[in-house]
């Protein structure tokens, strides 16, 4: 069993077996974190470039740690402090990295499809670390890993994604992945933040969380993206909190073992209350640990090469 592609561009392009392979490979990598020496040698001599056109702390450091724990060399390039600021095009930047013999390029870009362009232009393995509002596959994978670890399965679970679905690449990757793994996916939020025809992706839409909360096994709370709220898509943060905020009060009607997740960074007191975020139901800090393990699994598996193996 192996990944059938050189790149990880989105969960849309993986099948159930490949997702399973990544999740199963992440488990032994997570076990490494309990050792005193957390570093293992399989990517020794490989170069991983982190090319970030959008700010990120969590995802970037998680990839950096994952690559370093596999003994790869890591280069950090952020758009604001590189030739990109001088007007270099994405493809020219990519060609430069290829000329430097990068084996992996982890890219975050505000335009959907930017990783796809890179993948078609250079031989290095491209990993999408978030492209516009399109996909964020490693977040989807780490969310599924977290559910799988806590619940022992994915198939048949009722998973709700709550909040700003419209702007969320995390939501889209979760929907692709969870559907393939046999979970039932619900999206819940204000009508203005639910994209039209989202039902076509195989999800059920609810506009009132309280209608469905009693049936859910997992709730994945999305961040209200302040930087994208200039369009006035809902009246006020306070009203949002009233209707969609995940609070102790609201969870009284939920299943005892409801799992609460959040991709971070959290706006405490808006989409999630502090007491829920810090409760035993929450897997939010666990998600961060799992993120490193899942990204190690992805790097490790992609390094295996395949028929298109331009790299070597």
């Amino acid at each position, binding site marked *: 069993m192996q990944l059938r592609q050189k790149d990880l561009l989105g969960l849309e392009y993986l099948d159930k077996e490949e997702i399973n392979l990544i999740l199963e*490979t992440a488990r032994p990598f997570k076990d490494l974190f309990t*050792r005193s020496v957390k570093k293992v040698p399989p990517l020794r001599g490989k170069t991983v470039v982190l090319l970030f056109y959008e700010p990120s702390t969590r995802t970037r450091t998680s990839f950096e740690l994952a690559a370093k724990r596999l003994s790869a060399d890591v280069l950090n390039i952020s758009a604001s402090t590189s030739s990109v600021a001088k007007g270099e095009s994405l493809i020219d930047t990519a060609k430069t990295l290829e000329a430097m013999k990068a084996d992996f390029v982890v890219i975050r870009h505000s335009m959907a499809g930017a990783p796809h362009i890179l993948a078609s232009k250079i031989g290095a393995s491209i990993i999408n670390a978030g492209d516009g509002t399109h996909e964020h596959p490693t977040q989807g994978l780490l969310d599924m890993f977290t559910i799988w670890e806590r619940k022992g399965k994915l198939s048949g679970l009722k998973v709700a994604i709550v909040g700003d679905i419209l702007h969320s690449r995390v939501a889209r990757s979760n929907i692709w992945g969870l559907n393939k793994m046999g979970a039932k996916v619900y999206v819940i939020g204000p009508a203005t933040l639910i994209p039209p025809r989202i039902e076509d992706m195989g999800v059920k839409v609810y506009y009132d969380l309280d209608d469905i909360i009693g049936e859910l096994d997992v709730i994945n709370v999305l961040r209200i993206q302040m930087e994208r709220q200039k369009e006035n898509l809902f009246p006020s943060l306070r009203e949002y909190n009233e209707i969609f905020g995940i609070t102790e009060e609201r969870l009284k009607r939920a299943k005892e073992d409801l799992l609460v997740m959040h991709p971070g960074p959290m706006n405490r007191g808006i989409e999630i209350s502090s007491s829920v975020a810090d409760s035993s139901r929450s897997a939010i800090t666990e998600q961060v640990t799992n993120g490193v393990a899942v990204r190690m699994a992805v790097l490790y598996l992609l390094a295996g090469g395949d028929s298109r193996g331009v790299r070597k």
Partner: protein
Amino acid sequence: MVSRKKKVIMDAKEVSWTIKRMAHEIVEKSYGIKDLVIVGIQTRGVHLAKRIAREIESIENKEVPVGSLDITLYRDDVDSIAHQPMVKETAIPFDITDKKVVLVDDVLFAGRTVRAALDELIDFGRPKLIRLAVLIDRGLRELPIQPDFVGKVYPTSSKELVCVNLKEVDGEDNVILKEEA
């Protein structure tokens, strides 16, 4: 690869006697079981390690700690094999620093697995010493590695295969020599 059975190198009884003998040798050479720990290499080495530990316990009436080691991440051929092998569990639930470690594997061949295992073990701590126990030494070494405890030395050619079968994974105990057809 198609292969045909050529010869039975060890049958079930011989496997059992050999494990008993190796257990005695380990106790003798370690001068008792103080600070002794046993670590098996995935997959069959782990089962052999558990069996050896059980024999030692029946000799000394005291439990010996057993761990398992998966060397996948320490292989030297990541670039040359077709795809990445599945990573299995490594579980060494004790500190190996200053311990006498007996590393157990089923077949000793090129010695590359043992090289990887040594590298990985040393990432876990600094043992007082590491000794190597194998059920079959089939020769054809590519690295300067020699076993301390051997079930059977059985020189082979590179065209032959040595298959160790153990009840826990294969349903029966024996060692079979096969040849490429």
